[in-house]
């Protein structure tokens, strides 16, 4: 019977609804999903003269990069800041933060999957809860603690940023200072993102390592690997997919974070891009085309990740669903 031999085309579609209906619904959905993106794109490529309300849906008559220029560099006459500095802030924030949480998460995952001890599952569950808490419930003490840390680190930061011992190193020293944890520094934000990213990173690696057979570990032990040696020689070399998933997940969620950004940083020179974009878009002195260009620019990294690494991106989303 033919029905039994179906292997590759799993479910044949031989019933009442017409294929037409399926495609119709899909295409209507595509319109719903693409309309905002269409508007985002056409508006950001319009010049100021073309941002006419009545023609807001029309394709730009002439592709203009003017709005990107304003969104990126700001406008002295318009009285608003560009996003360029904040874009760099976000990069400086997101790279060390995602790397750190991936590495720590991987080590935790190693323990929680391969060296379970009495109570380790309970500890793991307690950690997981940290993934779901509304961060509002920790913001107030968080600010206090960061302030407290600042009383120690601020003198160091000032000293680093004020020093000019290595000539021409002003910018370098500035960023070095910003990387030190404290209230209002990028280092402070990195610390916060690493800590609150621990549950998801640990979960992903635990689930990933759970799929790796015990025999591999035992073989390693026979080869004389110690506790960390097993991790280094057996697990780490095959962890690449896990790392990619966690890095992408952390990258997108830290890049897209707003709450911690607005709570921890106040100086517009230090704020991450989401906060800067919200300020740019929130003031009515900024024209729509510039706002849209800003929105597009600030989404570029995550869009690139999505476009080029979509399979890992989706796997990260799945990991986030607790399904593993």
């Amino acid at each position: 019977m033919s029905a039994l031999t179906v292997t590759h085309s799993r479910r044949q579609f031989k019933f009442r609804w017409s294929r037409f209906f399926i495609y119709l619904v899909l295409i209507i959905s595509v319109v719903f999903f693409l309309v905002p993106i269409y508007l985002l794109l056409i508006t950001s490529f319009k010049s100021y003269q073309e941002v006419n309300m009545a023609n807001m849906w029309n394709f730009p008559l002439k592709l203009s990069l003017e709005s990107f220029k304003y969104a990126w560099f700001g406008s002295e006459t318009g009285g608003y800041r560009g996003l360029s500095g904040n874009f760099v802030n976000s990069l400086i924030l997101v790279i060390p933060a995602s790397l750190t949480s991936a590495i720590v998460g991987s080590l935790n995952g190693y323990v929680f999957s391969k060296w379970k001890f009495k109570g380790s599952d309970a500890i793991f569950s307690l950690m997981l809860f940290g993934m779901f808490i509304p961060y509002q419930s920790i913001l107030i003490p968080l600010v206090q603690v960061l302030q407290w840390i600042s009383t120690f680190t601020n003198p160091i930061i000032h000293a680093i940023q004020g020093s000019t011992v290595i000539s021409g190193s002003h910018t370098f020293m500035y960023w070095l200072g910003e990387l030190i944890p404290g209230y209002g520094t990028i280092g402070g934000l990195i610390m916060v993102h690493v800590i609150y990213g621990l549950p998801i990173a640990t979960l992903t690696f635990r689930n990933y390592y759970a799929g790796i057979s015990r025999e591999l570990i035992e073989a390693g032990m026979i080869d004389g690997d110690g506790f960390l040696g097993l991790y280094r020689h057996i697990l780490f070399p095959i962890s690449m997919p896990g790392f990619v998933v966690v890095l992408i997940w952390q990258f997108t969620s830290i890049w897209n974070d707003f709450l911690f950004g607005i709570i921890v940083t106040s100086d517009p020179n230090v704020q991450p891009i989401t906060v800067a974009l919200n300020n740019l878009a929130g003031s009515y002195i900024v024209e729509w085309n510039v706002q849209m260009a800003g929105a597009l620019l600030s989404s570029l990294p995550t869009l690139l990740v999505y476009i080029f690494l979509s399979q890992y991106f989706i796997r990260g989303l799945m990991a986030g669903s607790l399904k593993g």
Partner: protein
Amino acid sequence: MHLNQKYRLYSILLIAPSVLAILVFVYGFIAFTGVASFINWTKMKIDFTFVGFNNYIRLFQTERFLIDLRNTLTFTVLFLLITIVIGLLLAILVDQNIKGESLFRNIFLFPMAFSFIVTGVVWRWLLAPGNEITGALGVNLIFEKIGLGFLANGWYTDPRIGIRAVVIAAVWQYAGYIMALYLAGIRGIPVEIVEAARVDGASEINVYRHIILPLVRPITLSAVIILGHISLKIFDLVVSMTGPGTGFSTDVPAFFMYDTTFRGNRFAEGSAIAIILLLLVAILVVPYLINSSKVEVER
């Protein structure tokens, strides 16, 4: 064994920093917020005078907070319902051996690459209502052009719609994600089960109703948990899209908490809002966590 004991010690040492960090930054901080919600901390200077449930009582007498709770409820119910229905529908349709399947999937998932801030900025413009002078804008303008002018409305600026307009943007962002979850679930169902039903002469609709939907029920549960905890603590989207809105028609507890605490310096009340938010999320998540760790043990 000697080695095992040594390795257990190493294990504990290795996870200790993370566990400690979570203990302090999650549980310790929550405890601090809990204490703060019972004291008289209404100015910058911390005042440890115990006031019992006064902060909570005051909150429940504040109209803005009551409106916020109502908004959250409306938002959560609509957001969950619509997102799950659309997500499931899209998953089923995409699963029908269609041409260009991966293109469709990628388009539906695309919004997940944006931040809530960007989504808010874009939808703020899409749903900008326009007025007597500028004429219709955004979606309203499209409605007018295709002869559906009666559908045009004030969107988020109309207090009667308020938070429901924000739901549209949130659904746009998350429906594709839910589709991907369901699709993975449907694809994970062994072919034999489905084929057996078909051989028995079940109609395609019945195959979905009686075989596939029951089997993807755990995914619905995951979806409820994920979307639910996002929606209860929603903040960014509201900030960038609407702000609190006229008569707080688009306000949410997370925003009120931010306003009260960091702008108004009424830390005690802010803590009380935070604790209420936490309880709401805990009601949703804790049973799920306990359940899934039980399943874990059984395995």
